[in-house]
C-alpha cells in the first residue's frame, strides 16, 4: 500500500477551518502535515496548529466507544454505574426512533408549548463541520429546542457577538492585522485562541513593528508576545475604556484628533436628541433631525450637502418617538447633538477616577488614549484593489470575561465608540467584523447590509411591541421573549440565555410557564457537566431527563447520564464538505473562498458510523425521509441548494442515499454555484485535491464601502433604539407580572454609565451568607491553544505537550498571595467559592499574575472521561456561580468568581 497523503480539513476550533494531509502508511494513519498545496492561498502559509497533530491519536484512542451502548442501570447519578451494554446499530436506532415516533404521535410541543425534542451541540458551532446531514434531519423534524446550554454565554464573547453584529455586522471582531499599527487588547488572547491565521499574522505584524498593548489581570500567551503588559483588576475594563473616551473628548483637542467628517456622515453623532432622550424628528417624515449651522436650522439628517453640528444646544420644533408608539410633539424643544451628550456623559470619567477602580495608573490611560488617536492616522487613505479607502491602523480588542456578562455592553460600546471617533471602523487597518450569525446570509456579511430606519442598517431584533412580542416562550431559554438583540436566526437559541433552563429547573421563576424537561434530549460534541458554570446544578438535574441520546466518542461526564450512546465516526473517518476562506470567525479572512472536504483516511474504527448515514437512518425510521431529502435539496447541510437555474442535482425524495452519494452531489452543486456553472468538481475530485478555492476580493473584508455606497450610518454613539426597546420590553414583562428580569432591563441605556461590576460578585457572596472579604481573590480562566474548543482532553499526547505551557496543570497564583497563605510551589491547594463549592490543584507560583487573582486554564475537572480524569486539574466551572443576578441583558455572564485559597 505504501505511503499516501489524504487531504482533509481541521475544524477543531472556531478559528479554522485549516487544511492538512494525513499521512497513511500501509493503511495506518501515522502523522499529519500542513497541506502545502494551499500555502499561497491560506493566510498562515497552509499551517495547522498543535491540536491538529492530535487527530491521529484521537482516531486510535483505545478508550473510544466503537459500538452503540444501552444503559442497564435505571438509576442515574454520578455514583451510579450506568451499566453499559453493547447493542447493534439496528437496536440502537430502533430505540431512539421509538422515542421520536412517540413524540410525533403525542405532538411536537408539550402542554406548555415547549418542543418535546431538544438538541444541544457544543463548541461554538464546530459540530456543524462534523455532523454531516444531521441539520437536514432537524429541519425535517419541525420545532426542536436548542436552548439547553452547555456553557455558552459565560464562555464566549457574548456581548461582542450581539452588539458587534448590531453595530457593524461583527459577530466576531478582529483587527485588520496585516495593516494595523497599534492594538490595545483588553484580555483578547488571540495568540492562544486565534488559530493559525491569527498567530501567523500577529507574528508577521510584530516583526514589522506592530505595537500590541495587552491589558489583563494575568500575563497570558498573548501578553507574552505583546510590547507591553498592563495588569488590571478583573471586570474594571469598562472604567479604563470610559477614561480613554474622556481623554479623547476632554483632554485632547477632539475636533483635531477625531475623524469629524466620519462622525458627521457615518454615525449618529450629529442627530439631535430631545428632552426625553429620543431623536428629535421631522414632524411629517419622522426622519431624525440634525442642526445645519449654515441655515441656522434643524434639517433631516439626510439633507444633501450639509455639515451638521456636533456641538451646541438648540431649540427645535419636532417630534420624539418613545416606546409603544408614544410621541412627544415639541414646538421648541431643547436638544443637543448626540456627540455633545457623549462628551457630557464622559466628563467625570477621568483617568484618575478609572485608576482608582482598575488599578491602572492614570498616566498609562492617558498615554494609551493619546497613542491611539495619534496612531489612527485620521485623514489618511489607502488603495485597496483600485478603491480608495480610509486608512486607520488602530484597533481595540476585547477578550472573554471582558466582553461577556455585566460590563460587556459598556466595554463593547466604549470600544466601538472609540473606533468611530477616529473613523477606525471597518476600514483598512482598523477593527473588522469577520462573520455574521444573526443576520443573513451567513456566508457574506456585506450582503446582509440593508437599509433600515433612521439612516442605519436594518436590524433583525426580536419584536417588543404589544402585538408581536413573544409573550409565551416557545423554547426553554426564551431568547425571543427576553433578548431582542439576539434575533431569531438558527444560531439565536444557542446565543440566548442558555443557562436559564438549568436555573429554572431548580428555581422556577414567577409568572412563567413551568419549566419542563424535553422527552428526548440529543447531545453531540458537548459535555455540559464540564463546560457549564456551576456544574453541580447539572448533576442534580440530569437524572430527571426522561431520555438522553448522546453521540459519543468516549464515556464522559454528561453521557454518563444518557440512556443511549451512539459512537459516530470521528474527524478522520467521516465525510463532509465545508466552507473555507472568505471571512469567518476571528482572523479567518482570506483572499480566497471555497469549499474543503473531510474524508475517511482509514476505515472507521469498530462499528462507528458516519453521522450522515445515521441521520438518514433516523429519517427513514421516523417516516421523515422525504422531508429530510427535501431539506438536503434545499441546502440544509451546507447552504448550497441542489437545484438552481444552472443545475439540478436533487435527491429523489422517496429513497435513502448513502453518505458518499449525498456529498458527491453537494460537492458538485457547491462548485457549480461558486463558479456560476463554469466548474463542476465531484467527490472523487475533492478526495484527491482536498479543497476548491476561488479568489475573494480583499475589499470585501471591509464593511465601509458598502455602508458608503448605500448611504448608511453606524448606530453610534447614541443608542436611541435600544433605549426604546428596553422600555418596551420592561412594559411587556411587567404587564405579565414578571419582575425578575428588571436588573437586566437597566442595561438598555442610550449612553451607558459605569456600574460597580465587580461588586455584583461580592453581592452574590452576601446572598450566600458570606462576607465577600473572606473570598478576596478572583478566580479567572484562560484559553490554551492545546485545548481551546478541541474536544481532545482524552489525548495523552496533548497533555504531554501542554505541560510545557505555564499553567497546565495547576493553579497559578502570585508568590505574595501564596506566601500569605503559607503555600509553596507545588503544594496541593483548595479553592473555595462563597456557595461552598471547592476545587483542588497544585500551586504554580507566578509573577505574571496579579496578587488578587488566581488563574486556572481551560475546562477540566473530569471524573468519567478516560485519561482526562487522571489529570487532576481544577476547573473554574465547578466554582463559578450560576445566578440570575449575574446574568446581563444579553443573557450571558462572565467566567469569574471570588474565591479563597488554602493549603490542602
Amino acid at each position, binding site marked *: 500500500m505504501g505511503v499516501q497523503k489524504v487531504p482533509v480539513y481541521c475544524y477543531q476550533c472556531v478559528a479554522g477551518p485549516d487544511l492538512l494531509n494525513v499521512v497513511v502508511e500501509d493503511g495506518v494513519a*501515522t502523522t499529519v502535515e500542513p497541506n*502545502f498545496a494551499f500555502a499561497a492561498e491560506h493566510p498562515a502559509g497552509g499551517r495547522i496548529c*498543535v491540536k491538529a497533530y492530535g487527530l491521529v491519536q484521537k482516531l486510535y484512542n*483505545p478508550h473510544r466507544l466503537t459500538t452503540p451502548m444501552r444503559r442497564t442501570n435505571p438509576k442515574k447519578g454520578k455514583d451510579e454505574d450506568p451499566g453499559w451494554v453493547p447493542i447493534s446499530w439496528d437496536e440502537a436506532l430502533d430505540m431512539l426512533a421509538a422515542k421520536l415516533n412517540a413524540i410525533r404521535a403525542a405532538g411536537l410541543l408539550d402542554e406548555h408549548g415547549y418542543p418535546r425534542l431538544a438538541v444541544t451541540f457544543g463548541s461554538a458551532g464546530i459540530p456543524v463541520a462534523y455532523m454531516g446531514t444531521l441539520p437536514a434531519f432537524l429541519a425535517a423534524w419541525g420545532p426542536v429546542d436548542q436552548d439547553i446550554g452547555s456553557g455558552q454565554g459565560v464562555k464566549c464573547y457574548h456581548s461582542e457577538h450581539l452588539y458587534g453584529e448590531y453595530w457593524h455586522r461583527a459577530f466576531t471582531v478582529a483587527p485588520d492585522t496585516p495593516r494595523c499599527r497599534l492594538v490595545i487588547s483588553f484580555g483578547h488572547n488571540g495568540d492562544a485562541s486565534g488559530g493559525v491565521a491569527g498567530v501567523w499574522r500577529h*507574528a508577521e505584524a*510584530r516583526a514589522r513593528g506592530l505595537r500590541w498593548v495587552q491589558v489583563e489581570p494575568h500575563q497570558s*500567551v498573548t501578553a*507574552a508576545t505583546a510590547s507591553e503588559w498592563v495588569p488590571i483588576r478583573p471586570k474594571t475594563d469598562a472604567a479604563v475604556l470610559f477614561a480613554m473616551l474622556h481623554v479623547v473628548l476632554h483632554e485632547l483637542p477632539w475636533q483635531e484628533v477625531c475623524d469629524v467628517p466620519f462622525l458627521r456622515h457615518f454615525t449618529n453623532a450629529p442627530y439631535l436628541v430631545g428632552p426625553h432622550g429620543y431623536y428629535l424628528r421631522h414632524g411629517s417624515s419622522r426622519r431624525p433631525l440634525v442642526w445645519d449651522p449654515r441655515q441656522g436650522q434643524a434639517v433631516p439628517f439626510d439633507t444633501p450637502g450639509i455639515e451638521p453640528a456636533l456641538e451646541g444646544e438648540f431649540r427645535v420644533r419636532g417630534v420624539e418617538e418613545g416606546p409603544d408608539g408614544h410621541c412627544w410633539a415639541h414646538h421648541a424643544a431643547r436638544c443637543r447633538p448626540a456627540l455633545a451628550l457623549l462628551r457630557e456623559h464622559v466628563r467625570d470619567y477621568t483617568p484618575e477616577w478609572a485608576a482608582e477602580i482598575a488599578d491602572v495608573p492614570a498616566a498609562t490611560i492617558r498615554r494609551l488614549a493619546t497613542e491611539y488617536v495619534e496612531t489612527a492616522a485620521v485623514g489618511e487613505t489607502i488603495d485597496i484593489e483600485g478603491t480608495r479607502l480610509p486608512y486607520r491602523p488602530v484597533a481595540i480588542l476585547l477578550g472573554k470575561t471582558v466582553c461577556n456578562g455585566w460590563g460587556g455592553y459598556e466595554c463593547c460600546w466604549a470600544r466601538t465608540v472609540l473606533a468611530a471617533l477616529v473613523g477606525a471602523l471597518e476600514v483598512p487597518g482598523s477593527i473588522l467584523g469577520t462573520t455574521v450569525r444573526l443576520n443573513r446570509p451567513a456566508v457574506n456579511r456585506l450582503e446582509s447590509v440593508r437599509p433600515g430606519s433612521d439612516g442605519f442598517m436594518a436590524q433583525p431584533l426580536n419584536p417588543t411591541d404589544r402585538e408581536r412580542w413573544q409573550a409565551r416562550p416557545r423554547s426553554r431559554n426564551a431568547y425571543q421573549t427576553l433578548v431582542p438583540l439576539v434575533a431569531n436566526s438558527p444560531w439565536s437559541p444557542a446565543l440566548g440565555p442558555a443557562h436559564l433552563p438549568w436555573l429554572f429547573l431548580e428555581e422556577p421563576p414567577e409568572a412563567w410557564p413551568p419549566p419542563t424537561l424535553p422527552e428526548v434530549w440529543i447531545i453531540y460534541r458537548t459535555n455540559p457537566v464540564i463546560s457549564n458554570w456551576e456544574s453541580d446544578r447539572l448533576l442534580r438535574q440530569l437524572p430527571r431527563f426522561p431520555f438522553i441520546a448522546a453521540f459519543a466518542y468516549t464515556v464522559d461526564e454528561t453521557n454518563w447520564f444518557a440512556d443511549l450512546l451512539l459512537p459516530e465516526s470521528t474527524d478522520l473517518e467521516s465525510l463532509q464538505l465545508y466552507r473555507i476562506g472568505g471571512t469567518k470567525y476571528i482572523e479567518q479572512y482570506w483572499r480566497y473562498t471555497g469549499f474543503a472536504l473531510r474524508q475517511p483516511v482509514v476505515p472507521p474504527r469498530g462499528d462507528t458510523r458516519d453521522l450522515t448515514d445515521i441521520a438518514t437512518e433516523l429519517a427513514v425510521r421516523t417516516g421523515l425521509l422525504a422531508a429530510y431529502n427535501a431539506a438536503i435539496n434545499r441546502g440544509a447541510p451546507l447552504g448550497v441548494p441542489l437545484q438552481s437555474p444552472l443545475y439540478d442535482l436533487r435527491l429523489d425524495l422517496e429513497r435513502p442515499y448513502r453518505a458518499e452519494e449525498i456529498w458527491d452531489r453537494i460537492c458538485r452543486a457547491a462548485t457549480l454555484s461558486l463558479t456560476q456553472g463554469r466548474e463542476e468538481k465531484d467527490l472523487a475530485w475533492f478526495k484527491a485535491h482536498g479543497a476548491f478555492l476561488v479568489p475573494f476580493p480583499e475589499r470585501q473584508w471591509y464593511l465601509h464601502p458598502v455602508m458608503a455606497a448605500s448611504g448608511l450610518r453606524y448606530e453610534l454613539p447614541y443608542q436611541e433604539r435600544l433605549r426604546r426597546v428596553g422600555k418596551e420590553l420592561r412594559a411587556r414583562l411587567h404587564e405579565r407580572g414578571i419582575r425578575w428580569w428588571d436588573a437586566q432591563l437597566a442595561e438598555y441605556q442610550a449612553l451607558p454609565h459605569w456600574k460597580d461590576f465587580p461588586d455584583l460578585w461580592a453581592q452574590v457572596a452576601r446572598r450566600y451568607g458570606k462576607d465577600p472579604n473572606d473570598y478576596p481573590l478572583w478566580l479567572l480562566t484562560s484559553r490554551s491553544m492545546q485545548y481551546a474548543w478541541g474536544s481532545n482532553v482524552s489525548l495523552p499526547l496533548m497533555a504531554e505537550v501542554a505541560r510545557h505551557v505555564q499553567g497546565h496543570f495547576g493553579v497559578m497564583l*502570585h508568590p505574595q498571595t501564596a506566601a500569605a497563605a503559607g503555600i509553596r510551589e507545588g503544594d496541593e491547594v483548595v479553592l473555595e467559592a462563597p456557595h461552598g463549592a471547592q476545587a483542588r490543584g497544585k500551586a504554580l507560583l507566578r509573577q505574571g499574575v496579579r496578587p488578587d487573582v488566581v488563574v486556572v486554564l481551560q475546562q477540566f475537572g473530569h471524573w468519567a472521561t478516560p485519561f482526562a480524569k487522571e489529570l487532576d486539574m481544577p476547573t473554574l466551572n465547578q466554582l463559578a456561580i450560576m445566578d440570575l443576578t449575574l446574568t446581563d441583558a444579553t443573557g450571558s455572564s462572565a467566567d469569574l468568581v471570588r474565591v479563597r485559597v488554602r493549603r490542602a
Partner: protein
Amino acid sequence: MARWGMVIDLRRCVGCQTCTVACKLEHNLPPQTFWRYVIDAELGAYPEVERRFLPMQCMHCGEPPCVPVCPTGASQKRPDGIVWVDDTVCVGCGYCVVACPYRARHLVLEERWYFGQPTPPEQARRQPARLGVCTKCTFCMQRLDAAPPGAVPGRDPAATPVCATSCIANAIHFGDLDDPQSSVSQLLRTHKTVRLLEALGTDPAVYYIVG
C-alpha cells in the same frame, strides 16, 4: 558542502508547541521524550515581568562536546554539520547525555506507549533499535538526504526539518549558513541574534533573533 543551521525568531514564537508535537509525530517519539520543545519562562518581578518562549533542541554544535566523549564512535558530526548517533554502534553508556550542555540527548531504555498498549501507528512504527541507545534531534536528516532533485532545504517543505515547516508563526528558518544567499544567512545579516551558552565554545548552529 553546506553547513546546516537554524535561525529562530523569538519575536514571533508564541510557545504553542506545534513544532514540539510535529517533531514527536514525525519521529515517532515515545511518551516523555522530546527532541525539541519550547520553554515558557518568566523573567523579572511583578509588575515588571516578562514571559518568554525559547525553543530548545540540539544545537548541532560546530564543536560538539557530545562527540569526543563517545567511547564507540557512534556519536558523530557529518561534514554538513549535522550531529547524529549511529544507533547500530551506540551502546547507550550515556556519556554524551551528560556532556551535552543543552540537554538535547535522550536515552530510552524500555518501550513506552501512550495508552499502555501500542496503538496501530505505534505498533506499525515500532523501532526496537532505538531502545537503549542515545537519540536526539537529527535536523530531520532523513528528509535532507532524501530530498527530491532540485528541492532546496529551508524552502521546500519535503527537504526541510518538520519543526520549521510546521511552525505557525514562521519563526523557524533553516538553511545553509555557508551560503550567503540562503534565507538564514540573510536573516543573520539583518537581525540581532544570540546563541545559547556561546561562552562554552560549542559554536551552536542554532541562532535566535532577538531584535
